[in-house]
């Protein structure tokens, strides 16, 4: 028993030393650690959003919209091609995940197939009964398109969030079609949500002045046009006005290269600039339609519909629409960052204000210190000198937990603090097991050294069994938990491992040192 191999002592001391080294950066301010040599550990514990305040948003890319849009474009292509080839049909439309139509004369399926596959090789055309034709988009093409939509969405989300000046945002893909956004320390998640909630597809379309808007409002909308609401909302929460707008897109917003908030006669407006293609098209259209109004449409809502007074050839212009300064800024931001390929839906939101986070940290610290003091006093009362040894191990244990959390850059959450406090209580368990064993062996008449030896040896298998079973539960909690719960599982697992180390190795070393020095006749336990 008194023999403790040198390498083991070195190993134990090294681990403890590393523990203190990695825990140390948490004692000082972050700005101080940045000045340290890069050979020194300088990472601090990563606080979760529930402690530092901030927003956690789980977004889903509406990939069904991507499919729908794809199918709508197939409908358009089919309509154009069949008209060009003078093939008669009825009932062209979307049915589930396919486009269907009814051809007038049977036997035209091959012709339709030839036409469509020449344009779009991803399409398959099947003949059904009685001239029914089903056009499908291949699964791989759809999947690729959805993938691209998700990736592009992440990019746009990142651009929009970066533009707001949020510091250290985390934007990650999660699963098939989800995006996890974590924004530490923001005080106004509503603005971010509003920014992310808009697809921001902007198009310029001519207002239909040929047909009567009154007729359209009464339900007789001409085929080439559609009624769009104004984005100005009246006091009753309904759009103030409807516009009859041509379906044909004059110029699309993706040709914009810049947009900035500015002022025009004291009113906040957004100035924009087209690329050369957009500028040419905009110039052409405005030149041909002087005197007519055109609508600036954002996500199917009309922002404004100014009249074209003269051809706009410079490739730039301003959008005015009774904006507030903030609205003008946000619109410019959205136009700069680009349109989302599909709408985003907020599936889950957890926002914690900075006040609550700070309160939670303070409360967690008080609780941890008090819990620790209670356990320390209790251990001294129950085991005397050995209790003090266990307490030394407990402190080392806590240091090791902090060090492991810092080194692994695991996130500490409020339930995580609970995990640490729980570990403080359970960490002494391994020591209690050993000490109780030593007491028993002493009662059975063993002399001190032999009793301590037997105590450690017999307790070890129990310690390992009991801690490993708890560890299993913690690991499953980590796998299936989310957010703060994961933080709890992390601290619990780390705590279990460190407490096994301190109980089996550290206290044993201290006890052996003590035995060697004092050679007691009886044990104070």
């Amino acid at each position, binding site marked *: 028993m008194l023999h403790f191999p040198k390498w083991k002592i070195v190993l134990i001391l090294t681990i403890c030393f590393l523990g203190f080294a990695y825990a140390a950066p948490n004692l000082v301010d972050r700005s101080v650690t940045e000045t340290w040599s890069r050979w020194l550990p300088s990472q601090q514990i990563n606080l979760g959003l529930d402690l530092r305040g901030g927003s956690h948003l789980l977004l889903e890319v509406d990939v069904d919209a991507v499919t729908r849009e794809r199918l709508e474009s197939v409908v358009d292509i089919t309509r154009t091609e069949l008209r060009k080839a003078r093939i008669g049909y009825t009932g062209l439309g979307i049915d589930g995940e396919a486009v269907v139509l009814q051809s007038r004369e049977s036997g035209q399926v091959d012709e339709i197939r030839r036409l469509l596959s020449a344009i779009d090789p991803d399409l398959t055309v099947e003949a059904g009964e009685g001239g029914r034709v089903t056009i499908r988009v291949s699964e791989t093409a759809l999947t690729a398109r959805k993938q691209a939509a998700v990736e592009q969405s992440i990019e746009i989300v990142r651009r929009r969030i970066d533009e707001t000046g949020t510091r250290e945002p985390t934007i990650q893909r999660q699963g098939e079609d989800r995006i996890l956004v974590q924004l530490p320390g923001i005080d106004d998640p509503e603005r971010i949500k509003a920014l992310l909630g808009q697809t921001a597809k902007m198009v310029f379309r001519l207002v239909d002045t040929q047909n009567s808007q009154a007729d359209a409002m009464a339900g007789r909308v001409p085929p080439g046009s559609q009624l769009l609401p104004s984005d100005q909302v009246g006091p009753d929460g309904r759009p103030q006005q409807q516009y009859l707008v041509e379906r044909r897109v004059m110029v699309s917003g993706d040709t914009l290269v810049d947009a900035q908030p500015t002022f025009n006669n004291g009113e906040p407006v957004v100035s924009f600039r087209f690329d050369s293609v957009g500028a040419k098209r905009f110039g052409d259209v405005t030149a041909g339609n002087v005197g007519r109004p055109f609508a600036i449409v954002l996500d199917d809502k009309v922002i404004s519909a100014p009249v074209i007074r003269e051809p706009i050839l410079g490739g730039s212009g301003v959008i005015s629409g009774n904006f507030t300064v903030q609205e003008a800024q946000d619109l410019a931001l959205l136009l700069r960052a680009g349109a989302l390929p599909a709408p985003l839906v907020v599936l889950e939101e957890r926002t914690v204000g900075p*006040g609550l986070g700070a309160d939670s940290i303070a409360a967690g610290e008080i609780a941890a210190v008090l*819990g620790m003091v209670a356990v320390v006093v209790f251990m001294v009362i129950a085991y005397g000198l050995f209790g003090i040894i266990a307490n030394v191990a407990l402190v080392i244990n806590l240091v090791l937990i902090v060090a492991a959390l810092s080194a692994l850059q695991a996130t500490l959450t409020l339930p995580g*603090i*609970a995990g640490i406090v*729980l570990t403080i209580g359970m960490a002494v*368990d391994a020591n209690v097991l050993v000490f109780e064993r030593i*007491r028993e062996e002493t009662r059975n008449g063993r002399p001190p050294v032999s009793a301590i030896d037997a105590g450690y040896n017999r307790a070890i298998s129990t310690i390992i069994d*009991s801690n490993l079973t708890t560890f299993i539960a913690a690991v499953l909690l980590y796998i299936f938990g989310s957010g703060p719960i994961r933080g709890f599982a992390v601290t619990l697992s780390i705590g279990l491992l460190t407490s096994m180390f301190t109980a089996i190795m550290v206290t044993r070393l201290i006890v052996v040192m003590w035995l060697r020095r004092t050679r007691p006749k009886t044990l104070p336990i």
Partner: protein
Amino acid sequence: MRPIQFFADSPKVPFMKYKNAGLAFAGLLMLITLVSLVIQGLNFGIDFRGGTLIEVRSTQGPADIPAMRNKVNGLGLGEVSMQEFGAPTDVLIRVQQQDGGEQAQQVAVEAVRGALGEGVEYRRVEFVGPKVGEELITYGTLAVVLALLAIMLYVWFRFEWQFGVCALLTLLHDVIAMIGLYSVLQLEFSLSTVAAILTIAGYSINDTVVVYDRIRENLRKYKKMDLRELCELSLNETLSRTVLTSGTTLLAIIALFAFGGPVIREFTGALIFGIVIGTFSSIFISAPLLLNLNLRRPPDKPVKDETAVGAQV
């Protein structure tokens, strides 16, 4: 300094005499849980049911909850509950899941913000859509079921099958009793609750394994001893440790309960209950159950010195 010994050198509590009383008490707990689940079910929080939770702090003295309720009730958002949370200035508002998918929830939060107006600080907003709620239910259930099975397999592997089965039954008892607590008191059943249940499962199995370890050791040591007597001896030998460990853990958790802030109070409260239940079950359920399962003694191996057990590490 002389340590205080909390127990006599060799306590002789006649646990087996209380065996039936213990099992009956456990049965009663199960029955209460079942009845409560049938009658009032569980009070699912927004994690599982979907919906919105908003914690606000009034910046102008104590919050006037009736006035706030009046403002929000006019919005037609269905069931909205408000309660004081931790301090008179703080109010917890729960808005039920709105019809119309994820988008409708956002509109509801906006409406509540609008109605409450200035004079409140938003400390916390949590919103869980129906889709995520369903997934959280699936994952929560999976976590608990898999944890129980994994623990049973581990105990089976390390001991005999009887131990594995009894450990599982003991854990089921703990889990059901925890669920019962949430149902009877109608505490909010959330993701943290699942964490609390799993923690208690981990804690209770820790206790149980210590007892089983001693039974296994004594089975080798006292070849002739009556099983009943042997279980009782093992429980008494580990009693001091069981109570001390539960004591220290309770001390730490009670500190957290009292000072850890309102956000985790329900979580820590459940842990306190669970630690008591887990300690009870590892004494009064895990060992007595073994007696009912035809436990066989390990085959006669040459009696080796017990110190060899630890030598493997």
